[in-house]
């Protein structure tokens, strides 16, 4: 059984106990434990079920590579699925539940799949569930979806917050093991600013577990001293619980800092996403031990040798009392020795190598451990935990020589450098035949903005495994990185580590080498996704030969561990089945993140109130206080209407319109774009930007203008006021202000850079209020300050002066057809003017009105609206706006485009008014049908509705639309099929429905 022992446990604090529950069962652990070590200390060998066959699974690893021990963690708003027990620090009252089983972990109906596994080989679902057709969606797929999917879906809104942090530094070192720390030191000694990212809570890595001596002291003592030294260096920052998640182009490094996962009650953000820019990156990400592929290698109790050693030394947990060790290299002997010295009974070391290992083997033998060379595990027996091991010769098909009962198996298939981060941004790998692994090819690093390599590697991640090589290479790596960014490293001696010579490893991709199909179909490569040796062989046989095909066909390496344990074994198995060397098979692409990172962290601070900027006019809060119903316009929010008590929106809109037409209304028009264009060439410039002539506009006057893009399409419209000889004020649509400003700058800077024009965006300098209606002038005269008589300020003129004691510009422009003044005052006095108007307006029955009333009134007048009548495919000519297109100008933006055959075609749909024959309102976006079907069997259309409203003024539905040859077909009735099943009939009419002569606005 697995239990906590009295000795060892360098990372735990035995003086304090923590309580936690697993599947409701109370358990105890210590501060410093991971959930995994605590579960093992409580003899919880069975921790989950596999994805496909629902096989019983236990903890295999001790770190980020763990494929099995995933749990549902926490409850309610802090619930999180698929948490890796090996990287979850234990905290008091932690609640964990195992995943992917029903009804219970011990008894799981899904396990029937394991019995049927022969019927469910790789890719079986591509070959079946074909008939009957409807069954896929309604029967087969729901079953597959239910049985897949691991953790539960969260139910509540996340109670935590997240944030970003931007850092710019010389060198980022990913990994706080001995290699990372030494690299950081030599880089810092060279004068570089260094940031070290360590994913675990502990700097120092696994060297203290593996032992050895550096500069004459025990490795762990050396590391403690090194950490002290680094902490004292002002140009070194070390962050623990902060994983280097990804490396991106131009030195961008993504860091994932877990601030409160280990202490959920602490204040502050849960995760912090580091967005780092570094000149050089050094990945010192270590290496991951590989499992051995033998039958039953997925049973609870079968564990990586290094993990078993970690649990013993770091946490004082002895995973088995009677242990068998299977290996193809010397490192596993360290585990055997540690276990033996801690009092475990190490029954056998099965060394696949005929000649066995080096000095470590000697030491094990001296401790009295029996070592069988050239031996292998034929099969592991047991149900929910290891019971027996059948031992056979490595060079056999699996015939058992003996059977030994035991309670744990430690396996080691050799080590693979963690090359993920090196590869994220294009770093290439080379195959090391001796060590049987892929390692970074220093000659082909990821390249940065200057075209030179910006990532290097140190330590085990570099492919060095002997402590002596690691410390020497790491020291040098730091100096080199500093040199690469122009530092002049001073001479510092590299540390010297005592060597423990290790014998050469023997590549073992299958155990035993000649394992029969029965064994191969029980030898797991990818634990979580249930991919076995036989599956990869099948994929190869069926022609899924590229490693990408095999991966996708078998799902090898696609689980939440992204193949950290399975990739190399899988590649080797594929290479063997294809009879090609491993390098020619290649690897699949490594993609960020190194381990999964929370969506919350990626979203950062942007949620709720600060999800996106909300733009407020100076009068915003008044609208809010008066129950405005909002309409988002870009990032602005404009009052749609101001419903009273229990007034429906439509009624409110009708009331506002009637009031404007009969008395006076106020519109907050502050969001309108206001661009100041000034210079000797300003007129010439605006003549190019607008379709009509602006240079001839007189100071003091206003003119309505249209803007097109180079593709000829209408992009914006608005009133231009000439302020003086050299300056114009261009009004744009609310949504358009920033784009049009950028549009102007673009043309001035990149095409007409010799023209003398400056542009400034004064949109937010002014609050703009439209005072509209027959009583508008009376109201303003009451406030007093300037002469607004028709004589001094006629339609389409503007004047400067004071209103209610506030400096103001007044524009006589109307978008409603009524007498209308648009008053611009400094933003900081906008609210003052607004309230003054409301107060003074009482006697005239003043009311605020919103965007919908605005839209309806402009439609009654037949004025077009950008975004309604236009959609990015409409040219001014389509809208009968030829009067606003200068014939005199030989050029303006869009003119050439409008001469293209399709744009000049007489068959373009043109703007008309539409009146339903029965007065009802046409449906939004309805199409007018023509005769028959087109070549693709679709109904022929001959027009569409662009805007449609109920007009309270005319008390009937009115609409505008684009219709084939429309203007020549006045009076004709068109059919508009609705999506409600009805067909609407509408007559083509003039688009101006109200006050055709325009007398009302001109008083």
């Amino acid at each position, binding site marked *: 059984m697995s239990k906590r022992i009295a000795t060892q446990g360098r990372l735990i604090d035995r003086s304090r106990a923590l309580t936690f529950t697993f599947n409701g069962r109370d358990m105890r652990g210590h501060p410093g434990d991971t959930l995994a070590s605590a579960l093992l200390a409580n003899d919880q060998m069975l921790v989950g079920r596999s994805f496909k066959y629902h096989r019983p699974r236990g903890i295999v690893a001790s770190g980020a590579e763990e494929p099995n021990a995933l749990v549902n963690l926490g409850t309610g708003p802090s619930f999180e699925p698929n948490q890796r027990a090996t990287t979850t620090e234990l905290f008091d009252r932690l609640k964990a539940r195992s995943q992917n089983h029903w009804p219970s972990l011990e008894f799981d109906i899904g396990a029937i799949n394991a019995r049927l596994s022969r019927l469910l080989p790789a890719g079986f679902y591509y070959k079946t569930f074909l008939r009957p057709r409807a069954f896929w969606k309604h029967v087969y797929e729901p079953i597959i979806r239910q049985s897949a999917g691991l953790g539960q879906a969260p139910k509540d809104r996340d109670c935590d917050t997240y944030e970003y942090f931007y850092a710019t530094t010389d060198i980022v070192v990913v990994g706080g093991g001995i290699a990372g720390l030494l690299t950081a030191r030599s880089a810092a000694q060279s004068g570089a600013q260094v940031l070290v990212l360590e994913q675990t809570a502990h700097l120092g890595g696994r060297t203290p577990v593996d032992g050895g001596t550096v500069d004459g002291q025990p490795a762990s003592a050396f590391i403690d001293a090194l950490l002290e030294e680094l902490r004292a260096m002002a140009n070194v920052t070390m962050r623990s619980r902060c994983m280097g998640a990804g490396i991106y182009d131009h030195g961008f490094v993504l860091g994932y800092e877990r601030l409160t996962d280990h202490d959920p009650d602490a204040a502050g953000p849960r995760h912090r996403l580091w967005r780092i820019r570094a000149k050089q990156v050094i990945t010192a990400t270590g290496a991951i031990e590989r499992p051995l592929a033998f039958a039953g290698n997925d049973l609870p109790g079968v564990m990586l040798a290094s993990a078993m050693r970690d649990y013993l030394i770091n946490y004082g947990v002895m995973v088995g009392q009677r242990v068998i060790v299977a290996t193809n290299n010397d490192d596993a002997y360290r585990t055997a020795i540690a276990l033996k010295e801690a009092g475990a009974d190490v029954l056998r070391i099965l060394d696949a190598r005929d000649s066995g290992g080096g000095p470590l083997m000697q030491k094990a033998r001296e401790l009295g451990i029996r070592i069988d060379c050239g031996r292998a595990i034929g099969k592991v027996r047991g149900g929910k935990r290891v019971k027996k091991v059948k031992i056979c010769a490595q060079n056999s098909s699996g015939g058992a020589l003996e059977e030994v009962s035991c309670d744990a198996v430690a396996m080691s298939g050799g080590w693979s450098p963690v090359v993920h981060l090196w590869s994220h941004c294009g770093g290439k790998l080379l195959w090391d035949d001796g060590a049987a692994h892929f390692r970074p090819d220093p000659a082909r690093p990821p390249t940065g903005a200057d075209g030179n390599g910006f990532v290097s590697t140190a330590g085990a991640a570099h492919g060095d495994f002997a402590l002596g090589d690691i410390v020497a290479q790491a020291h040098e790596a730091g100096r080199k990185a500093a040199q690469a960014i122009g530092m002049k490293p001073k001479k510092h001696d590299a540390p010297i580590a005592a060597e423990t010579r290790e014998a050469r490893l023997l590549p073992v991709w299958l155990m035993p080498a000649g394992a029969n199909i029965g064994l191969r179909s029980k030898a797991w490569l990818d634990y979580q996704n249930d991919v076995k040796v036989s599956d990869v062989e099948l994929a190869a046989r069926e022609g899924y030969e590229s490693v990408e095909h095999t991966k996708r066909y078998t799902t090898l390496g696609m689980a939440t561990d992204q193949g950290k344990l399975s990739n190399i074994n899988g590649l080797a198995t594929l290479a063997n089945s294809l009879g090609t060397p491993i390098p020619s098979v290649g690897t699949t692409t490594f993609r960020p993140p190194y381990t999964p990172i929370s969506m919350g962290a990626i979203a950062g601070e942007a949620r709720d109130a600060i999800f996106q900027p909300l733009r407020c006019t100076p009068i915003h809060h008044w609208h809010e206080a008066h129950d405005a119903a909002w309409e988002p316009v870009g990032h602005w929010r404009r009052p749609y209407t101001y419903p009273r008590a229990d007034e429906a929106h439509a009624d409110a809109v009708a009331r506002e319109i009637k009031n404007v037409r009969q008395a006076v209304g106020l519109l907050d028009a502050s969001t309108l774009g206001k661009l100041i264009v000034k210079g000797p060439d300003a007129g010439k410039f605006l003549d190019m930007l607008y379709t009509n002539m602006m240079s001839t506009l007189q100071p003091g006057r206003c003119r309505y203008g249209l803007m097109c893009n180079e593709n000829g399409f209408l992009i914006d419209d608005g009133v231009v006021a000439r302020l003086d000889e050299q300056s114009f004020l261009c009004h744009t649509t609310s949504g358009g202000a920033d784009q049009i400003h950028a549009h102007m700058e*673009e043309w001035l*800077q*990149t095409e007409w850079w010799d023209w003398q024009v400056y542009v400034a965006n004064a949109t937010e300098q002014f609050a703009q209020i439209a005072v509209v209606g027959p009583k508008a002038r009376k109201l303003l005269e009451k406030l007093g300050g300037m002469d607004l008589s028709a004589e001094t300020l006629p339609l389409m003129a503007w004047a400067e002066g004071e209103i209610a004691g506030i400096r103001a510009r007044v524009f006589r422009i109307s978008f409603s057809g009524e007498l209308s003044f648009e008053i611009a005052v400094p933003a900081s006095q906008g609210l003052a003017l607004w309230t003054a108007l409301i107060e003074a307006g009482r006697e005239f029955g003043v009311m605020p009105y919103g965007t919908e009333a605005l839209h309806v009134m402009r439609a009654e007048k037949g004025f077009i609206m950008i975004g309604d009548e236009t959609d990015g495919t409409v040219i001014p000519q389509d809208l009968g706006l030829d009067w606003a297109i200068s014939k005199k100008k030989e050029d303006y933006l869009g003119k*050439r485009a409008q001469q293209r055959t399709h744009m000049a075609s007489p068959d373009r749909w043109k703007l008309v008014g539409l009146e339903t024959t029965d007065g009802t309102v046409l449906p939004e976006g309805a199409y007018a049908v023509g005769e028959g079907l087109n070549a693709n069997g679709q109904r022929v259309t001959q027009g569409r509705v662009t805007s449609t409203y109920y007009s309270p003024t005319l008390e009937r539905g009115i609409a505008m639309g684009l219709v084939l040859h429309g203007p020549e077909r006045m009076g004709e009735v068109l059919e508009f099929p609705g999506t409600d099943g009805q067909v609407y009939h509408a007559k083509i009419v003039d688009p101006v429905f109200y006050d055709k002569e325009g007398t009302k606005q001109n008083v």
Partner: protein
Amino acid sequence: MLILTCPYCGIEADETELASGGEAHLTRHGPGTSEDDFSNYLFTRQNPLGVHFERWRHAHGCGKWFHAARDTGTLEVFATYPAQTAEPPKTVCDAIRKRRPGWTWQGTA
């Protein structure tokens, strides 16, 4: 995540401070030009796998448009330079040739 140095204010701008503006050094074609010339001006692009000249605006910054010479296959940036020019300056072409021997501007050395 590109970094480009704005030639106007000298800031090493983060991609999120920049707005991209497509291929650089296009010649505007207005009224009187042929259908082909005009549609090439609007739509046809070099889109090379390799050296590419493009327009960027230091939008969250000094607001200036500038040009960048960049490799679309490696994202290497050869140079950035002011936008007020019809073709890449010699210094830029030299910088590119230093990294990509034999490269020529629109096929002419």
